[in-house]
């Protein structure tokens, strides 16, 4: 499938009178690997939730795979932030991965043998199959991240949304994860949000900055020279103390 898979037009989101997203427009093409960076509280998670239809915009239009987000949800794999989870939660790795198939299973039905096979396959692709019976709370950050990725991939999605996938893992694991995503990107469109500019720019092929407003940088700028070039997201670089600019200045700044 070619063409546009996600389209946001002038999307505004407000929580209790506070504007989180301000006139965000975005177009993601099939098999893009888009990185969205921005400060904490800049609206990155909200943007992903808008694409999933979990947050309704106050204004603007969202189209995913040609339809509404609610309709297209089952073609999206979602990897939320790890911090979200209760470490004592009584579920095994396999239980969690199977949750990725809930939509397909339908209410009042049990998981089928086929579902279980799909879960094994997803775990195997993440090299996590031997831990399938382990309680999720006993996993390391990197392992849990792989399980959540397996859960997102088990339904064979067309689009993968990842929220800060590298937040709680060490450097070698990070590289491994990005290599894995690069590989998946051959058949899946990926949108990844992170405040971790350094690594992201080496793997993604398009980049955008989000701090309430979205600044889209397109693809060409992520070259060795431009990393040296001038750029800042408002607040972003100050907040994270990155000493050099990564991308071009935003227009009109």
């Amino acid at each position, binding site marked *: 499938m070619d063409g546009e898979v996600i389209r946001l037009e002038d999307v505004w989101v407000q929580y209790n009178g506070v504007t989180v997203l301000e006139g965000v427009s975005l177009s993601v093409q099939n098999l893009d690997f888009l990185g969205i960076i921005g400060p904490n509280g800049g609206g990155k998670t909200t943007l992903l*939730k808008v694409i*999933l*239809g*979990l947050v309704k915009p106050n204004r603007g239009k969202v189209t995913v795979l040609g339809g509404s987000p609610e309709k297209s*949800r*089952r073609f*999206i794999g*979602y990897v*939320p932030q790890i911090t*979200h*989870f*209760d470490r*004592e*939660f*009584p*579920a*095994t790795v396999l*239980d*969690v991965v*199977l*949750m*990725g*198939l*809930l*939509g397909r*299973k339908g*209410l*009042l039905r*049990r*998981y089928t043998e086929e579902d279980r096979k799909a879960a094994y396959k997803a775990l195997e692709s993440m090299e996590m199959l031997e831990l399938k019976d382990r*309680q999720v*709370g006993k996993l390391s950050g990197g392992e849990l991240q792989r399980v959540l990725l397996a*859960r997102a991939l088990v*339904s064979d999605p067309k689009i993968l949304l990842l929220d800060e996938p590298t937040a709680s893992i060490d450097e070698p694991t990070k590289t491994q994860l990005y290599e894995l995503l690069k590989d998946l990107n051959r058949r899946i469109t990926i949108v990844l949000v992170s405040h971790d500019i350094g690594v992201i720019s080496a793997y993604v092929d398009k980049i955008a900055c989000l701090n309430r407003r979205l600044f889209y940088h397109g693809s060409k700028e992520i070259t060795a020279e431009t990393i040296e070039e001038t750029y800042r997201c408002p607040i972003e670089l100050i907040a994270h103390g990155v000493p050099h600019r990564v991308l071009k200045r935003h227009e009109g700044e």
Partner: protein
Amino acid sequence: MLEILQYEFMRNALIAGLLASVACGIIGVLVVVKRMVSISGGISHAAFGGVGLGYFLGFDPVFGVLFFAVVSALSMGMLRERVRLSEDAAVGILWVTGMALGVIFVGLAPGYAPDLFSYLFGSILTVPFLDLVVMAVLDAVIILVVLLLYEEFMAILFDEEFATASGVPVKRVYTVLLSLVALTVVVLMRIVGLVLVIAMLAIPSTIAWQFSHRLKEMMILSVIITAVFTVEGLWLSYLFDLASGATIVLVSLATFLLSSTLKKVSR
């Protein structure tokens, strides 16, 4: 110990205790893992309105409690969705509304309310046969629904947002869970009373969680633990002539303290 079973009221008490353990163990685990102990407290106290209604209109208060518990569970689900009210405040409001209504109804009811105390604090020794039937039916409903929605319950317990994103009707499943809590309140009322219901939902399941991290296993464990506590409490209350409901709760508490300490020491 066995000779006490020659009395019919003792046999009924034992059956009631075992029936209650089933509902309590299964739903208690969901309540504890979902962290809705105080919501359950709200539902069980609000259900007192139903006791009053039963006295006032002259029918078996058990049905009033069933009605009030389910209605308050449904309104809890609605308050959470529609009104911008913190869950905490919603629980408080529901809690006192039901109790206040109950007190008013009891006052309006003709004559003296004979076993009001038993609805509040339980009286397992006077469980009528009809209540055993009600308990068994409610147990069956609870088991059936949990079997049918097990995966969905686990999903909303783990991560409501992801469950929504996967297409689970989270709000409806949550409302079903609240309704099951309401049914469990009715089942447990005869054992420990409406005031002490939360203790039985919280304590055995918390102990089960100390020993298992699998939802199914925790449920089975929690049913067994509740059954042991009920029988133990019943026996002690018979031996020392103590209030049965409170004795069961205190036995549970003592065991909880013991297991928590053991758990700490073994670490």
